[in-house]
């Protein structure tokens, strides 16, 4: 049995017939071919798969595509505007906040959500808020620096 799922991904309305067990991350990567969202653990631990659903960050490996029916989904591919990186993406680049880059899409999506809720976060808040995102390379230090800088840039 398949069901029809419609959602808005990065501003574009998309409809696909999928099996009900299709995860949102599978929908994005396999049905839409948008591979910016990564699968690290597939067990709700690592946060590599974080996207925004109606403005809040969720682990797209732990939500069915069907649950996002009618929702507005934003992935890392939807952040840059007119060829210009989002301030948080730019801050990650400037601060050398990535090495292999595998965790980066999820880190950036979580970081933007945390800044939306805490426009002027302390370093402690940033570290605490990134609890759901694991990085095996950087040791987090530059990621925290980047998020602080990105927050400042987002405040304008």
């Amino acid at each position, binding site marked *: 049995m398949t069901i029809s799922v419609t959602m808005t991904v990065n501003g574009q309305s998309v409809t696909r017939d999928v099996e009900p*067990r299709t995860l949102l991350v599978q929908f994005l990567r396999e049905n839409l071919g948008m591979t910016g969202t990564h699968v690290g653990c597939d067990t709700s631990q690592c946060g590599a798969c974080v996207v925004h659903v109606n403005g809040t960050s969720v*682990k797209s490996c732990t939500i069915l595509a069907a649950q996002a029916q009618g929702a507005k989904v934003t992935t890392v591919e939807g952040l840059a505007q007119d060829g210009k990186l989002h301030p948080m993406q730019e801050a990650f680049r400037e601060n050398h906040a990535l090495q292999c880059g595998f965790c980066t899409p999820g880190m950036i999506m979580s970081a933007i959500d945390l800044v939306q809720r805490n426009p002027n976060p302390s370093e402690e808040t940033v570290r605490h808020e990134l609890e759901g995102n694991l990085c095996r390379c950087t040791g987090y230090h530059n990621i925290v620096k980047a998020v602080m800088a990105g927050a400042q840039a987002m405040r304008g």
Partner: protein
Amino acid sequence: MYAFNYHRPASLADAAKLLGSATDGKFLAGGQTLLPTLKQRLASPSDLVDLNGIAELNGITVSGGSVTIGATTRHAAVAASAEVKKAIPALAALAGGIGDPQVRNMGTIGGSLANNDPAADYPGAVLGLGATIHTSKRKIAADDFFTGMFETALEEGEIITKVEFPIPKRAGYVKFPNPASRYVMVGAFVAETANGVRVAINGAGPCAFRHKEMEAALAKSFSADALKGIKTDPGSMNNDIHASSEYRAHLVGVIAKRAVQAALG
């Protein structure tokens, strides 16, 4: 994950009907426990009945001495609610300490209680405050709800609709989190309520339980010192790779004292 059928009813009656007519149906709330379970193929329901389309199950109301939280209300909504923070700050803090931000954006109070994981946070607050669990069929007192590890008083097809917390004079919650998962290794929810002092211990035993000896001591004197010397039997504690039962029994005393201090502000 095995294949299943997916339904998103808009009313409680339809949800109950859909589950009743499924071969082996399960309700889906935040999915933060159920979907990982399905991925591991530890369960293979024929049908998932998504409760998130039922408007009446969502939301927070504070009135007449109680805080009522709808079953599909996310942990993040409880943590951020100005009304909950004012009425029962310990409850908002508890919700804000569950897992990580992404888990809190999906996970729900109804799902947490129905699941009754021994390491879950909400059972501490529900038992510690003497809350009432409203379901599609009846009202269940907290003291009768948690019946064992992953076991509750819920019957097949019964839906938690909301949870009503009486506002206490003061309350405090402290958990010793597992450093990797943030699940509870030992938690204590201590409250001074209109009906006396309640102490709920979660994370430590097969399910949340009341510590009657601590309640009696705190009724005499509501201070951390009153708990000095009170021992907890390791025989009733969980013993796993995260902590031995002796260690958990010791932590119960330490964490309960901290919870009293938190309640005293």
